[in-house]
């Protein structure tokens, strides 16, 4: 399947995403809930972690998920759409959303994993609908942000910052 060139998330849709993530965090009593793009970019988050930690966490979780899908292929499985990483204190449950996004729930031993699985599935269904709308609205929203002046300013900043 061809990968998209870019994905534009509007303010309204980010609000919808935040509502789904917030409810999931509350209902599962998770410590954090993240929405990642499968390229490792962080789209939205609920919970308290320093921004820098989250950027690294996003890259690692997306890498691990992508890697696990190749493991599935080697085993002759069609796919792994969920991964559970279980620790002594904290665990992580990751689900794929429409081949594009990853829903990540970080929870501790007070929460039963079965609850996380069921409620994640519900959240994935809602987020799939958001993803469809985001995909449909891309080009117009992008043009409003990325114009000639913007590109030119970014190029100047690149020249300014990345020097020998």
């Amino acid at each position, binding site marked *: 399947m061809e990968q998209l060139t870019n994905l534009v998330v509007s303010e309204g849709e*980010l609000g919808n995403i935040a509502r789904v993530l917030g409810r999931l965090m509350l209902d599962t009593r998770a410590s954090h809930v993240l929405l990642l*793009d499968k390229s490792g*970019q962080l*789209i939205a988050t609920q919970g308290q972690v320093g921004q820098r930690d989250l950027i690294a966490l996003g890259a690692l979780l997306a890498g691990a998920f992508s890697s696990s899908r*190749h493991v599935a292929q080697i085993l002759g499985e069609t796919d792994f759409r969920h991964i559970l990483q279980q620790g002594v204190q904290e665990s992580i449950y990751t689900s794929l959303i429409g081949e594009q996004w990853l829903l990540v729930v970080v929870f501790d031993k007070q929460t039963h994993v079965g609850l996380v699985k069921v409620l994640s599935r519900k959240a994935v269904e809602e987020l799939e609908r958001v993803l469809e709308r985001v995909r449909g609205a891309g080009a117009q929203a992008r043009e409003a942000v990325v114009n000639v002046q913007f590109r030119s300013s*970014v190029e100047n900043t690149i020249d300014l910052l*990345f020097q*020998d």
Partner: protein
Amino acid sequence: MALINVASREIHCKIVYYGTGFCGKTTNLQYIYGRAPTTARGDLLTINTESERTLFFDFLPLDLGAVHGFRVRFHLYTVPGQVLYERTRVAVLNGVDGVVFVVDSSPEKLDENFASLIELETNVRHLGKDLGEFPFVIQWNKRDVPGAVPVSTLDRYLNRRRVPTFEASAVRGDGVFATLRTICKAVMARL
């Protein structure tokens, strides 16, 4: 795939450094990490084997700060170069917006470079993209090794698409930022 988050006013792009084992991909990121302004770089994350070779990937987030009210970020990744890690390279390429192909100029590496480029072409095609119509630059690294293959020869065999190329010695830092600037601009041009 670049992500434009209008609500949080952020733009994220993913750049992958690709090439054979020991060609200098990680060295590129280490040099950038060491020299980029501290305000513009995050932590360099590395997942190595015990022998310090890249096992999964290296990751370095770069932050341009606010441009016209949007915070622009480039996330740099390397792939593991060893032949047996092809599946991992495919995993890291997922959602890529631009590729730097790092070439080891040592004469004994020419064949490996060639094989790695063919593999990259195939993997990018599997993502539904054509390397010829994609932000893509080549870095001729290790220009300082004795007997380095002439650039004209490398260009003839490894740059059929006539993409931008840079002579480099990543250990000394020569050409590292020139490569970075060009791939970042190429990615922005395609946004």
